[in-house]
């Protein structure tokens, strides 16, 4: 039975290679862009709080509501709903390009929240000490907030990445391919259980790898 399972790689090996590459590209690009956007808005969500270094109720509230709205949509719905915007940004709503835009719109607010909670953990006393030293706000953000929160930021990004891998499985709907697409089209619709099993194994491995890497980096950064 195991031999029979391994036989199918002859037929589907290239398909998996292709799917892994597609998933990798989608997740890689979407993660890079979402991290930049998420980290930026995560910082904004923290420093604009009433009792923080750049209090601004309007900015905080507006951002808060927008993020909540985006976070309330399931990915599959969001992807279809923003097709016109996707088209406007990258010129197409299908393929890998067409999937990256909704993936970013879905993941960036999530990462922003994760970054926010990581940054809120930074000891307020240290921020106060830096204010007393005559540090500028930019210096406080770079030298205290982002630096002290590094382990928590990495763990947050790990969670975000795993969520992103999950969402990318649905990108088959817009023809972007990837592991999820293979699992649905071959494993489910064409009733090939061995393909389904392989896709599941590959996804589990990917998530394990990401989580282990994240935990390891965070541990190395933590000095307490």
């Amino acid at each position: 039975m195991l031999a029979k399972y391994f036989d199918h790689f002859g037929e589907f090996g290239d398909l998996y290679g292709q799917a892994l590459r597609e998933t990798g590209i989608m997740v890689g690009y979407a993660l890079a862009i979402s991290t930049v956007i998420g980290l930026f808005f995560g910082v904004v969500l923290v420093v604009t709080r009433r009792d923080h270094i750049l209090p601004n109720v309007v900015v905080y509230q507006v951002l808060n509501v927008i993020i909540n709205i985006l976070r309330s949509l399931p990915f599959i719905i969001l992807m279809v709903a923003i097709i016109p915007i996707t088209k406007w940004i990258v010129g197409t709503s299908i393929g890998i390009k067409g999937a990256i835009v909704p993936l970013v719109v879905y993941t960036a607010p999530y990462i922003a929240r994760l970054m926010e909670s990581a940054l809120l953990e930074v000891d307020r006393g240290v921020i106060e000490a830096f204010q007393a030293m005559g540090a500028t706000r930019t210096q406080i953000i770079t030298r205290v907030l982002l630096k002290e929160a590094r382990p928590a930021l990495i763990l947050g990004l790990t969670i975000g990445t795993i969520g992103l891998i999950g969402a990318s499985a649905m990108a088959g709907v817009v023809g972007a391919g990837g592991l999820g697409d293979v699992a649905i089209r071959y494993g489910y619709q064409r009733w090939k259980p061995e393909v389904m099993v392989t896709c599941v194994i590959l996804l589990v491995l990917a998530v394990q790898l990401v989580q282990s890497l994240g935990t390891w980096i965070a541990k190395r950064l933590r000095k307490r």
Partner: protein
Amino acid sequence: MIRLDNVSKTFYQGNKKIEAVKNATLQVNKGEIFGVIGFSGAGKSTLIRCINFLERPTEGTVSINGVNLAGLNGAQLRATRRRIGMIFQNFNLLSSDTVFDNIATPLYLVNTPKKEIVRKVRELLNLVGLQEKESVYPAQLSGGQKQRVAIARALASDPEILLCDEATSALDPQTTDSILDLLLEINKKLNITIVLITHEMHVIKKICDRVAVMENGEVVEQGKVLDIFSNPQKPITRNFIKSIFDVNLPEPLLKKLESQQDPGKIFRISFIGDHVGEPVLAELVTKFSLHPSILYGNITQIKDTTFGTLIIQVTGSDEAIKAGMAYLEERELRIEVIPHAG
């Protein structure tokens, strides 16, 4: 050098108005160690934060070297803050930086050349006695060592003023003393003006020149530490003093004295500085034919001055007692009559 004029700070918690500091006026002279004592919630934390504008006063003015802080723009205020070091109860070090980098922080902030940073940090490590700990992270240090790092960091920008926010409150008594000795050394060696807040009278007694007592946001009493100790005016001040030496006689003893045939009179005599060690009791006997007996004695050191308290019971004729006490007062001793218990 530091002047607070009618400083008030009011917070609003929802609709609740909290007057953390009310009308505080005080002046700190160059080179002195000025203490502010009060229970938690008395407003001393807010008061010390008004000195470097971590809290902007709602009313009143704060000036450093004659410059009103309220008139400064952002950059000027930051420049002024660099001349004012600050240390905290919880040390507030960067956990992700080594001891070296923590101490160098104020220098990094103004892009000091690397060579100059290394020189300065080594010098400070020497001063606070942590030469061996340069590349260690704060988590591996004891509380006292962390506070030493914080002190070194505060001194890195060569400040004229050092603010200490309950700097020894998280430390055990022995470590507290070693940190206080270090602060005293810094004050003398570098001629840095120190303002500290504390709830421990011991801290005031050991290193402060002058003290302000705070209660419910107000400065209720201030003056030289010695004067406050020898002649406290407010009940809260007496309470703080009592916390380190109790100069009251136990009630049962007072009762017992009263039941004696000739209870005489009970006096508290305070000696300050040079007067400690004068043979005053002998003089009461020889010059006034009085019979003093010692009920209680205490001698303590208030910064550089010796301060002694003696409670005596004196028997003799009323006139002789009066004359004797007048004589002692002439000798600049403080005399207080302690009323009988009944």
